[in-house]
């Protein structure tokens, strides 16, 4: 679905700074979660199925090794051939995708393995079956269970961090965002359609919602920005892989070095105090 949105504004204006970022985040040549996983990890061995309904192909979970550490890695599957994209719902998980991810996370917790998630999706899949099978419950369950996990957790927003569907894999000790990635509560198109009554105002909406990595960092909603090569990850994938690799290693080792109780308290305090924007009257 996001594939339909690469064009610039109908008014033919040059892209706004925010929209330039949107185009980079959605660039078809940009590395997807599975590209990062293939390059940064070794011995990836997939874990399938939610044990209740199905195996959601939009989400991949697996055992992997990262610089000698046994880890669980999770990523949504975006891109591929047209057929694959359809089978994978354009990377948008169904409830069983979130439930599979949670099941895998529980295995990792049981054996004390850190969890690393990669996120590049515009949102959870908004389908009839998804509602019947409890998309909202699946997301909510992941949030509360991720809050409780005893093992180190790192979430990486590598492209689009879309709404509750992204957050359901991102309630983590460290939330990293790539320099040209986005984090938003609603896509600029949908925001424009609702607030401006016209999806063509998507550039203005992208600007107003402050969705770029730099802006969400300033708002205190992510922990760290992962630098990309100046041409963008889509133009120099190797440099992007290298940058994320060293950043991720730093955070993995930092979290592993921390006493568990301290890490859990830090996670709780971070989210208890996150995004506090109010005044007392």
């Amino acid at each position, binding site marked *: 679905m996001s594939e339909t949105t690469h064009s610039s504004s109908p008014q033919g204006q040059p892209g706004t700074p925010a929209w330039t970022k949107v185009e980079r985040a959605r660039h078809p040549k940009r590395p997807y979660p599975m590209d990062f996983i293939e390059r940064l990890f070794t011995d990836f061995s997939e874990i399938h199925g939610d044990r209740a309904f199905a195996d959601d192909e939009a989400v991949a979970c697996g055992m992997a090794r990262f610089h000698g550490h046994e880890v669980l890695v999770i990523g949504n599957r975006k891109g591929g051939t047209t057929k694959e994209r359809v089978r994978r719902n354009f990377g948008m998980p169904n409830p069983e995708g979130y439930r599979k991810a949670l099941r895998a996370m529980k295995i990792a917790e049981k054996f004390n393995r850190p969890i690393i998630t990669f996120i590049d999706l515009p949102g959870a899949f908004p389908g009839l079956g998804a509602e019947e099978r409890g998309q909202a419950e699946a997301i909510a369950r992941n949030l509360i269970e991720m809050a409780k996990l005893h093992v180190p957790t790192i979430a990486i927003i590598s492209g689009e961090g879309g709404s509750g569907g992204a957050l359901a894999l991102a309630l983590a000790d460290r939330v990293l965002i790539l320099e040209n990635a986005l984090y938003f509560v609603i896509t600029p198109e949908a925001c424009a359609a609702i*607030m401006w009554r016209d999806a063509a105002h998507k550039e203005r909406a992208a600007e107003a919602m402050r969705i770029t990595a730099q802006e969400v960092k300033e708002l205190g909603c992510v922990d760290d920005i992962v630098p990309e090569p100046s041409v963008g990850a889509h133009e120099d994938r190797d440099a992007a892989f290298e940058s994320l690799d060293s950043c991720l290693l730093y955070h993995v080792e930092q979290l592993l070095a921390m006493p568990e109780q301290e890490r859990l308290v830090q996670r709780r305090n971070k989210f208890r105090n*996150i*995004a506090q924007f109010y005044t007392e009257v």
Partner: protein
Amino acid sequence: MSWFKRPSANLAAVPTDNGDFDPDQDFAAESTFAPVSDDGEPSRVRTEGLWIKCPGCRTILFKAELEAKQMVCPKCNHHFKIGANKRIELLLDPGYEIVDGNLRSNDPLNFQDVKSYKSRLMKAQAETGLNDALVTALGNIGPHEVVLSAMEFTFIGGSMGAVVGELIARAIDRSLSTRRPLIIVTTSGGARMMEGVVSLMQLAKIATGLAELDEARIPYICILTDPTMGGITASFAMLGDLNIAEPGAHIGFAGPRVIEQTIRQKLPEGFQRSEFLLEHGFLDAVVNRQELKAYLIRALDFLKTPA
């Protein structure tokens, strides 16, 4: 509910977890004591009117009689929306205390669409007399001392931004420190998009608090009322020890229009209503408004760790 059907928006088929909530709808017209007219659009009948037409069965009802029935149609059981203060009054015994009402959004994004978010806030504050879309009270439900938070739909569609998130976090803190059960009554279009990712983070904040409440074995019951959508459903509304709903409430994740545009077909009758969720296993019970208090007393008797 008419705000789900506005035909003019060229809504792209993209996922959203704010349930298509539209802040420009005249929510006040659908408030506690205002009826909905024949065509399903909010009417302009003022609260001073003596008569109300039921949107469920179209019977003309005498307002005083309807109020005596807790705003439930005696003919067809349609549950009219009611405000946060009214909800608290109906559930708690007299003598409760309203707390934490002093927080206001500081408009973190300086957000402006066709109107400024600041002007929307000011209008909502003037119309509701509240600072934001949630009221918390401490009081008793029969023999049980509880913390009760009720959402206010007429305040920007009950949407959740940093203030609602903080108020719920404080309600959870109060439950944690006193071990009083937490009860939340939801009615909301979802996350408040004028606060962007800040509103999304409130889901994480609340889920983290509820995790702690759960580990401390303090009861939490969510009462879902019409409508409960988007990020509200996808966080605290589905995380109670018990999740119960009033009959006929619209409850879901994605808005119906977004789903229709995704699957390119009409949605079945009763889709995303309380009874649909009960049937699919996502609610513990559907309970009539007049029976809610008795249900809570009974449930809270059970949700206790034996001494």
